[in-house]
């Protein structure tokens, strides 16, 4: 008689599977999505080439991948710290937007200002803005016991409206033909370019620095250990006297800080002004990046590169293989689904059973 396999818990987590899981997930996602493209009438070979190979074929293309990696890496490092403590910040998109808004305040209010202090001030202001936007859900959770998943999400939706308001109202560029955008920022309000000839700027260094700091914090520090215990066994954290309130505040503030910083770097970087299109879903993509990296600071470096590759590859595929840009979102979502399925095998193994046993003979 055919029996469905069951999952049996392992005695000890399998490190082999922990390494294999992301690779298997990527392979499975690639396979399933290529089949999808075939069904849609697009050439899988052309899409594969455009998405996963083209970005490496020219320096200009690859530098765009690096450019996109920066914000994804930065936000994901911040979010992962909270996810390990089971504090679910889903509102990074909104914190990103507020970071962009706070940073834009300087060039919008002082368009004639010059000096080397401007872009660092914008970055710091943006980080603070993101952190403030995350402080509200933190307060709501700690003092009012409200689920932070819903509150951070709602704050994101509100943030989009705040951005709309500013761009259609007080911050609209009077010489902008009535488009919802701010003035173009002055030269000093732009983060210096890191790699000449590309758009990659110093914020990439900040992102890499955040990975190192996150690694030291999560893997080595006692505070990081406390967060991990809070996520794995909240009653044990209470028993040990680890403050849940502090973990929630820190997790959300760090996530908001990182997202706000990324948002500031975006407007003080490649875009150079405040527009509606700054919100391209980095905040949500970063959630996938965080999980795909196994919530590990170094893994996240790899997964942010992969996600950036998908973004640029998706743009390429839109042009050369006529693939709608929404296909990238499907790819991203399916990646996370496959990854979560694959990581089951770290803690569990499949038991196929031996058919019927027992008395009915």
């Amino acid at each position: 008689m055919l029996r469905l396999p069951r999952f049996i818990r392992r005695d000890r987590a399998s490190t082999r599977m922990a390494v294999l899981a992301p690779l298997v997930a990527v392979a499975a996602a690639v396979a399933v999505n290529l089949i999808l493209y075939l069904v849609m009438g697009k050439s899988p070979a052309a899409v594969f080439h455009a998405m996963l190979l083209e970005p490496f074929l020219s320096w200009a293309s690859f530098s765009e991948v690096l450019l996109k990696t920066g914000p994804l890496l930065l936000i994901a490092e911040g979010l992962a710290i909270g996810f390990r403590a089971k504090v679910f910040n889903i509102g990074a998109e909104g914190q990103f937007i507020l970071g962009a808004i706070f940073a834009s305040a300087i060039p919008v209010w002082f368009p004639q200002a010059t000096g080397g202090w401007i872009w660092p001030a914008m970055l710091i202001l943006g980080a603070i803005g993101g952190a403030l936007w995350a402080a509200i859900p933190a307060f709501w959770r700690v003092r009012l016991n409200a689920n932070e998943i819903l509150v951070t999400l709602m704050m994101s939706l509100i943030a989009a409206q705040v951005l709309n308001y500013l761009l259609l109202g007080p911050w609209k560029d009077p010489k902008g033909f009535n488009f919802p955008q701010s003035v173009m920022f002055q030269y000093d309000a732009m983060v210096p370019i890191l790699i000449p000839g590309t758009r990659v700027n110093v914020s990439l260094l900040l992102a890499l620095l955040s990975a190192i700091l996150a690694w030291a914090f999560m893997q080595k520090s006692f505070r990081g250990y406390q967060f991990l215990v809070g996520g794995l066994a909240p009653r044990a954290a209470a028993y040990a006297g680890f403050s849940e309130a502090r973990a929630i505040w820190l997790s959300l503030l760090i996530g908001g800080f990182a997202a706000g910083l990324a948002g500031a770097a975006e407007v003080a970087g490649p875009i150079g002004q405040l527009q509606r299109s700054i919100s391209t879903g980095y905040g949500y993509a970063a959630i996938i990046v965080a999980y795909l990296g196994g919530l590990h600071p170094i893994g996240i470096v790899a997964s942010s590169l992969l996600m950036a590759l998908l973004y640029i590859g998706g743009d390429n595929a839109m042009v050369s293989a006529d693939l709608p840009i929404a296909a990238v979102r499907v790819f991203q979502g399916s990646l996370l689904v496959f990854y979560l399925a694959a990581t089951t095998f770290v803690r569990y193994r499949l038991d196929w059973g031996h058919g019927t046993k027992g008395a009915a003979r």
Partner: protein
Amino acid sequence: MTKSYGQVRANRAIDLDVAPNSIHAILGENGAGKSTLMKLIYGVEEPDEGQVLWQGQPVRLTSPAEARRHGIGMVFQHFSLFETLTVVENISLIVPGAKAELARRIRALGQDFGLEVDPLAHVYALSVGERQRVEIIRCLMTEPKLLILDEPTSVLPPQSVGLLFDTLRRLRDTGVSILFISHKLDEIQSICDRATVLRAGQVTGNVDPREHDAHELARMMIGRDMPPPLHAEARPVGEKRLELAGLDHVEDDPFAVSLQGVSLTVHSGEILGIAGISGNGQAELARLISGETRLSDGERDEVRMMEQGVAHLGPAERRALGFAFVPEDRLGRGAVPEMSLADNSLLTAHPLGLLRHGFIDRAKEAAFTAACIKDFDVRTPGPEAEAGALSGGNLQKFIVGREILLKPKLLFVAQPTWGVDIGAATAIRQRLIAMRNDGVAVLVISEELEELFEICDRIQVLHKGRLSPSLDPATTRPEEIGRYMIGAETRPSEVA
């Protein structure tokens, strides 16, 4: 019957024969495989090998519903009742029929067998004894021919044990056979006519318990003689290490028990035991003492440790004053199951030089853990083993060891040997006495009265959130403690 879970061979080639009109015991210590065998008989699990013959015919019990259809009923040790539902609703989950009719039958059965309970009450409002009655009535309403009872007396005061046994005899006389699972030799000898003894998953004896003495049964059960009861010689006591004076605490949680007028004192060099049936405020009292429940700054003197008001402090600050705590839940509270033993040491032992400038010193962490494992005889591959992979007894030894290595002045242990095999249980009790002899103040909460009698200098009883006055185990009989347990005696604890 044979059943394995992964690497663990829980039941190995077990043969069992239950006669009609019999009260048959399954005797074995914690971890011997009794629960697994019962799950196989009640259809919760299926065996890997072996056969079940019911009234001469082979059957396959694929589910509890199937087992009930054949006439097998089970009363669980940790009740399978739903707190937010009423008694009638709980019963209607198993027994078909209109609620009004069921309520009538509940009352009738209650009267017939001495198991009175209000059908319309919500389960969360019932005492543990009443919940057990609901479990038994629920079984009886399916008209079983075989009734399985899993450690039924662990939740009863001494007086009620006799009542339960009367009920069981009445049931046997009406034709119901009873399978009685226990590790208490004297109870089995008083009520059972047959006993199957399990040890490490195998049958080591199939006897009439009334024809054997305790030594022989013990040897079948644990392979050697029962360890001799421990002696704690009387000692002079020192200064107060823990003091609660008339503590009142109303809980937010509607399912929790509020404490009233609780007074206790523990001095250096003595062991104070808190007895009581589970569900009378033990968990709430433990949280107030450990610091998991914190009071406001103005109420700081409600709990005093080492002569200081600490009720406003959290667990880490209390440990800094010399307090250590072994909680009743090992997994998920005393230790994190997915983490290694080394990382679990950090939970409370981090002040012992395991950190450097806020960063974890892995070498010191490993050294501490290895020392704990060696000193407390924890059977495990090493400090990197996951806590969740250890057996109950070994994990308990590790946690007790970790707390003792904090060199506390005040040690608080809740349910020290619950679910622990006899070897580990004896070792733990010996350690507690050794601590006491070294001048440590020890507080123990336990549901095993014999354990408290063995190691405590004084005993107080917790009932419905109220604490009895201090009783001397040398001169007090278990029956008197039992009266406090059910609230028959109501002298309140005194403020020292």
